[in-house]
């Protein structure tokens, strides 16, 4: 029933987005008309750097990644011999602000060739229909139900991995470790609920036994009851979705119960600063995280041998602040993809040719992207299809320049 509800919600959102895009209809302007065919290639990155708290940190990292991406491309001689320039627009993570600024931008003499979105998905949901109408190539890290659907958003490419990709990595790792009985604990956020329902389906389809699944209210201060309930089912491993203070309460609960259980956290867990901070402010190195491993991209774990990733991190550190883990740095790959696509298409101005080139496996490989090694966009899906090999499950460590050490 829950699955049906999720699908129904997605369908409703898709219909809404289609309707909005349809209503917005009207004139379609070719970029050739406004975006300059000569001079520098213009890129605009939207981000909620003026938003509150963690949203601002995430957006800052994302914007820094976009700036470093442009720097990397210019170091390589630009795109088709043209320099790339980037403007940053602070949308305060507010869809209304984002739409207003985007409309202003499109009506100006400085139309961008490429727009990058730094999330959240509410902003992406508002912006992508306009970018589609305006025929502007865009990259998005806040996926919506339709942002990766080429029939709705033909010029948008999602850079963040999809939930099935994350779960594929979990399934692979569970198998590798030889676990059979899996307990799931997830939050009450939209993502947490989706994670909870899809993990149950995916794990069951992969042949694992779901010993128990529990949700918790994100405003709860203690998850011990849910944990004790899961403990009673005697699982081999606990798969965990938790972010921020709730993660702390979960770890406290496990410690309180004296439950010696391997914990596999999702990327929400690895994005929480508490586990990357040593006492007294954090829990890094304490018994609470002794059994914790968490999902990250390979690029989020520092590897001295990964020269190109390390160079990318250096560029980002030079370009600005990295205030969260590199899981928010997808935008670094954006301009690398554009460069490869433009050089394959022989033009930066033909958005149809660029979008088609980005579907070419050879172009994606030639882009030599660093945050995710291969995006695997297809004609049916502009969402990355990230292989389990691109993920790691690592123990907590200090976070330096967005990478776990």
């Amino acid at each position, binding site marked *: 029933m829950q699955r049906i509800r999720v699908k129904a919600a997605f369908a409703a959102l898709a219909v809404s987005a289609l309707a909005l895009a349809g209503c917005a209809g009207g004139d379609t302007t070719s970029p050739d008309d406004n975006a300059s065919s000569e001079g520098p290639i213009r890129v605009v990155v939207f981000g909620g750097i003026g938003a*509150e*708290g*963690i*949203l601002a*940190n995430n957006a800052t990292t994302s914007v820094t990644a976009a700036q470093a991406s442009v720097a990397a491309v210019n170091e390589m001689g630009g795109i088709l011999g043209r320099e790339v320039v980037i403007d940053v627009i602070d949308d305060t993570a507010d869809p209304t602000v984002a739409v207003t600024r985007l409309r202003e931008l499109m009506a100006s003499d400085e139309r961008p060739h490429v727009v990058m979105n730094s999330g959240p998905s509410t902003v992406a949901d508002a912006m992508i229909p306009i970018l589609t109408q305006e025929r502007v190539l865009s990259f998005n890290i806040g996926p919506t139900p339709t942002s990766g659907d080429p029939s709705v958003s033909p010029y948008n490419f999602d850079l963040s991995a999809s939930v099935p990709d994350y779960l594929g990595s979990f399934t692979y790792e569970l198998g590798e470790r030889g676990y059979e009985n899996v307990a799931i604990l997830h939050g009450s956020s939209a993502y947490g609920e989706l994670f909870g329902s899809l993990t149950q389906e995916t794990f069951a389809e992969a042949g694992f036994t779901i010993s128990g699944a*529990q*949700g*918790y*209210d994100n*405003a*709860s*201060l*203690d*998850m*011990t*009851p*849910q944990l*004790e*309930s899961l403990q009673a089912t005697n699982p081999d491993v606990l798969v965990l979705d938790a972010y*921020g*203070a709730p*993660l*702390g*309460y979960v770890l*406290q*609960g496990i*410690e*309180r*119960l*004296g439950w010696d259980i391997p914990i596999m956290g999702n990327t929400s867990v690895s994005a*929480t*600063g*508490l586990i990357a*901070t040593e*006492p*007294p*402010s*954090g*829990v890094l190195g304490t018994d609470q995280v002794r059994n914790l491993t968490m999902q990250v991209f390979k690029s989020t774990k520092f590897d001295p041998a990964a020269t190109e990733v390390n160079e990318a991190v250096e560029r980002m550190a030079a370009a600005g602040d990295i205030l969260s883990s590199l899981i928010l740095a997808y935008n670094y790959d954006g301009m690398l993809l554009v460069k490869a696509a433009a050089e394959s298409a022989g033009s930066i101005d033909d958005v149809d040719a660029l979008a088609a080139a980005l579907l070419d496996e050879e172009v994606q490989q030639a882009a030599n992207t660093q945050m995710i090694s291969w995006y695997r966009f297809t004609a049916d899906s502009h969402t990355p299809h990230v292989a389990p090999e691109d993920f790691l499950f690592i123990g907590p460590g200090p976070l330096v320049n967005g990478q776990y050490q």
Partner: protein
Amino acid sequence: MTIIMSGLAIGAVYALVAIGYNIVFLSQKTFNFAQAALMMLGAFVAYMGIAVLGLPWWLVAIVAAIVIGGVAALEEVVAIRPVKDHHNLLVTTLGASIIMEGVAQLIWGGEPRRVPFFLGDGVIDLAGGRVYPVEIALVIVVVLLVVALTQYSKRSMTGIALLGMSEDREAAMLRGVNVRRFAFWAFVFTGVLAGLLGVLVGPKTYAVATLGAALAIKGFVVLAIGGFGSMWGTLVGGLIVGLTEALAARYIGGDFANLSVFFILIVILMLKPTGLFTRRTERAV
């Protein structure tokens, strides 16, 4: 037993918020919806003092009491005193809590900060269950606080004056009680309390900017169950809400924890609309 203790500790935190609500209600016949936000700020001051500056806990508690008392005084002057219609205080105190949360976000960001407890952070075995020392401290402190406040309100002139104000503000004024001054200091006292308790609440909940929002509603539910104005009611209300939440999450499912709490609230209010510990008063008109 572990679940019972977990429920009692959470109930104690909710009760502490409800006590703050109650003091303001007794003195001003209104609610300070920023009470939970004051406690959140108290937890952050405790974090700064203990985790960052490494100061002794008692000094941090005193400093926090002064700082948060000052914040409460400011709130009273800016968000309470100028408002003529008491109904509008819901909006202004809610606005004050939003400002406090925003300020906390700006200063400390959105990440939770751990606050070490001065008696240790290791789990201990007690009566067949496992519990953190801070949770025992929270339960003891809330009981002592309720006893102390109840006795104070009965035995001291200030307490009797406050009770008089809550019964009939005009009559209290006629008896020479400076109601405005009493109301102000009662408000400040809730801030002082929130600051003092930061060294206890922070280790349980972490210092996190969203803490106020998490505590505000449950604190109000505790008050509604126990009865507006009753200190013993906050204790019993906290016990009911904490245990219901914990036991429902354990034996029915996490999704039913809040549902169960609000179900019990509705049942109690249907049976006794004034709450468990408040008597219905009749007025001759």
